[in-house]
């Protein structure tokens, strides 16, 4: 029987991590729809979602035949590598070492690229626009699938993880359609910072579980781990900013 302590962090982690990817995909699909109309953007996005659904339906059931400890260790490592990468990049961005990712810039870049092809024949231009939307949704969707599989790696937790990801898709789409512009207002680096801390926390937790070492406090240890990594990331970004100021 699943309890709130188990499902709430799973739904939350899948929701936040997926929303980052959905924002990126939505920005590109929106750029396509602005330049070439809603039809090619919608067809491209729907085709990519269909491909993703087929892949998940084909490979998802295989997970049930893998031993739980082995799966936890494999997924723990996956999450750890994935989460540490995000956290490191978010720290470097917060510390001023890397430039912040700008959805407005991404939107302008895609729009510009598509307008460059607008002089081509109408059908070819629509195909191109549809392919761009397809590629964006497929690529970002693949990352969402990885997140859902990794976050929901324990028996019974795949559904809460999928619910979190689906909620992120619905919310981002609703917000995006309401404002009809790139979701640049969502502070992406803060989200990535949080998600990096969460994925690293989950990864550390599941690596130990997979190795057969129990955590003091059970599932509540995940919250402690996430807090620890976020605090460490924050301290590192503050140190980077101070060092840069001292050198200037």
């Amino acid at each position, binding site marked *: 029987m699943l309890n709130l302590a188990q499902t709430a962090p799973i739904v939350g982690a899948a929701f936040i991590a997926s929303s980052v990817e959905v924002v990126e995909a939505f920005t590109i699909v929106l750029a396509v729809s602005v330049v070439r109309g809603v039809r090619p953007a919608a067809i491209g996005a729907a085709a990519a979602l269909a491909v993703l659904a087929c892949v998940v339906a084909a490979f998802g059931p295989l997970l049930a035949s893998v031993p739980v400890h082995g799966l936890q*260790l494999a997924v*723990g*490592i*996956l999450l*750890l*590598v*994935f989460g*540490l*990468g995000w*956290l*490191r*990049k978010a*720290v*470097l961005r917060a*510390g001023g*070492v*890397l430039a912040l990712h700008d959805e407005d810039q991404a939107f302008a870049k895609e729009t510009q690229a598509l307008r460059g092809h607008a002089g081509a024949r109408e059908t070819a231009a629509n195909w191109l626009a549809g*392919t761009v939307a*397809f*590629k964006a949704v*497929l*690529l970002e969707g*693949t*990352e969402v699938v*990885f997140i859902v599989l990794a976050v929901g790696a324990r028996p019974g937790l795949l559904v809460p993880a999928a619910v979190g990801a689906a909620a992120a898709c619905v919310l981002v789409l609703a917000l995006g359609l309401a404002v009809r512009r790139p979701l640049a207002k969502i502070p992406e680096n803060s989200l990535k910072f949080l998600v990096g801390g969460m994925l*690293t926390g989950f*990864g*550390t937790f599941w*690596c*130990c579980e997979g*190795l*057969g*070492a*129990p*955590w*003091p406090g059970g599932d509540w*240890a995940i919250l402690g*781990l996430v807090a*620890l*990594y976020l605090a*460490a*990331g924050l301290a*590192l970004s503050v140190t*980077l900013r101070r*060092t840069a100021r001292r050198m200037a």
Partner: protein
Amino acid sequence: MEVLRALAATIAKMFATDLWLTATALAAVGLCAAGLRGHFIAPAVLPFVLAGGVLIALTVGVIRGARR
């Protein structure tokens, strides 16, 4: 074909953006597994050792990134 290439690049990017960070994280887990099997690390201590290893990997990864 272009879509497949982009898909492969995305999956690679997810795990190989910083190979050193990936290698350090894998080494931390590997050392913990070896320590547990060889009875050098007690199961009750392992979570703290791994969390410490992850913190070291993150710190070194950030320092390397800042120096580039």
